[in-house]
C-alpha cells in the first residue's frame, strides 16, 4: 500500500468533511502539523471539532483555522496564547470543552486502544466533574472520562519510512502519538522520509500500523517563548 503523498493537500484528499472530529498533535507551537493545518484552511471544510492541547497563536497553527471560522468546537487544556480564540469564545461563537491535559492525552490514547472510558481522580470535586459518573474504588472517588474516537488524526513527526513508522524529536513528540492512535485515518507530516530499513526497529516511537498517509515538507517550527541564559565569562 502506498502511503507517501506529494503534498499536504494530496495527503488529505477525500478525507475531509464538514462537522468532522479531528485530533491534532502538538504542544504549544512545538511539533504541530503546520502543513496539514494550512491545507485544511485551503480546503474550506467547516464546522470542525478539533481535539488539541492548545489552539495555536493568532497567525500560526490552529489559530489559522480559528481565523477563518472553520472550527466550531475545541477540546483543549490550555488556550491562553490566542486572542482571537478568546474573542470568539467570550462572544459565544466558539464552543470550548476544557479537558485536564493528562485526561485529554489519556482520552486519545484510550480511543486508539479501543477503550471507550476510564476512571481518573483528576478533576474530582471540580467543574470538570460536573455531569460525569463518580465511582469509588478502595474508598476513593474517581470520575468517568470517555475515550476519543476521531474521524481524522493529523500529526507531525521528525522522520518516517515509507511504511509509516515514525520517529519524533525531543519534546516535539508530546501529543503526537496519542493523537495519531485515536483517528480512523492518520495523516503524518514529517521532515524527512528515509528508505525502508534506515530506522532502527528498536527505536521507532510509533509503528506504521497507526499511520495511513505521509507527506514530507519544510517546516517553519516557530518558537513561542525564546528564553536563553548568558554565557559565563571565562
Amino acid at each position, binding site marked *: 500500500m502506498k502511503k507517501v503523498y506529494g503534498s499536504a493537500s494530496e495527503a488529505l484528499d477525500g478525507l475531509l468533511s464538514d462537522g468532522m472530529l479531528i485530533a491534532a498533535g502538538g*504542544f*504549544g*507551537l*512545538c*511539533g504541530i502539523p503546520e502543513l496539514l493545518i494550512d491545507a485544511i484552511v485551503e480546503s474550506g471544510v467547516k464546522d470542525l471539532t478539533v481535539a488539541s*492541547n492548545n489552539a495555536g497563536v493568532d497567525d500560526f497553527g490552529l489559530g489559522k483555522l480559528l481565523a477563518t471560522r472553520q472550527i466550531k468546537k475545541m477540546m*483543549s*487544556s*490550555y*488556550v*491562553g*496564547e490566542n486572542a482571537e480564540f*478568546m474573542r470568539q*469564545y*467570550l462572544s459565544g461563537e466558539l464552543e*470550548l470543552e*476544557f479537558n*485536564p*491535559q*493528562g*485526561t485529554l*492525552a*489519556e482520552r*486519545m*490514547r484510550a480511543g486508539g486502544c479501543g477503550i471507550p472510558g476510564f476512571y*481518573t*481522580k*483528576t*478533576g*474530582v*470535586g*471540580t*467543574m*470538570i466533574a460536573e455531569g460525569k459518573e463518580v465511582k469509588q474504588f478502595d474508598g476513593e472517588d474517581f470520575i468517568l472520562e470517555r475515550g476519543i474516537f476521531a474521524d481524522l488524526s493529523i500529526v507531525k513527526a*521528525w522522520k518516517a519510512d515509507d511504511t509509516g513508522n515514525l520517529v*519524533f*524529536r*525531543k*519534546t*516535539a*513528540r*508530546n*501529543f*503526537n*502519538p*496519542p493523537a495519531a492512535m485515536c483517528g480512523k485515518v492518520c495523516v503524518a507530516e514529517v521532515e524527512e522520509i528515509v528508505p525502508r530499513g534506515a530506522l532502527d526497529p528498536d527505536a521507532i*516511537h510509533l509503528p506504521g500500523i497507526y499511520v495511513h498517509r505521509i507527506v514530507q515538507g519544510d517546516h517553519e*517550527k*516557530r*518558537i*513561542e*517563548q*525564546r*528564553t*536563553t*541564559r*548568558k*554565557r559565563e565569562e571565562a
Partner: protein
Amino acid sequence: MPWDRNQMAARAAQELEDGWYVNLGIGIPTLVANYVGDKDITLQSENGMLGMGPFPYEGEEDPDLINAGKQTITELNRTSYFDSATSFGMIRGGKIAAAILGAMEVAENGDLANWMIPGKLVKGMGGAMDLVAGVGRVIVVMDHQNKAGESKVLKACTLPLTGTGVVDRIITNLGVLDVVEGGLKIVETADGVTEDDIRAATEATIV
C-alpha cells in the same frame, strides 16, 4: 522583612529530598531549580521530558525542545523523552514525588484554585488538575495577599477549584503553613515576621 521571590524559591527548594522526581510550575516555582544545590533532583516537564536542563545559550535554542511553559530549554546527560499520555501516566500514577506550583487561592482544607477567573481569565488548567491529583506532595508557593491586600489563604476558595483537599504545604512571602486537621498550622515565619503578622494577614483558621 517578608521573603522576596528568590527567598521563597530558596525556601521551597529545602522541601525537596535527594533522589526525588519533581514537577515545577510556572513563575516563582521555576526559580526553585536555582536553589537545589547538591541534591540529586530530576525535573519533569509534563509535555514529555524527565531531566530538564537550564535555558540554552543564545543561538542554541531548539524549537523541538521546550518546557511546559513553552520556553526553550536544554537536555542533560540523564534526559529521557516520552509522549504526553506516558507523561501523565507517571503523574497520575504517583511516580512524581512532589509538585511545586503557584496559586490564586488556597483554602484551609487544602482546596486549591489556580486556573480560572470566571468572565475574566479563561486560559485553561493545562496539567495542573492532573498534577495536584496525582503527585505525592503538593507545595504551593505564592504571595500571602493579593495586590489589593486581601488574603489569598482562605476559609474556602471562591474561584473554580483545581483540586479538593490536595495542598500539603503553603510557602508565602510571610512564612510556611501546613494544612492540618481543623485548619492551618504555622511551621515557620520569614525573618522579622511574627506569627501575629501571619494571623493578621490570613483569613483562614490558624490552629
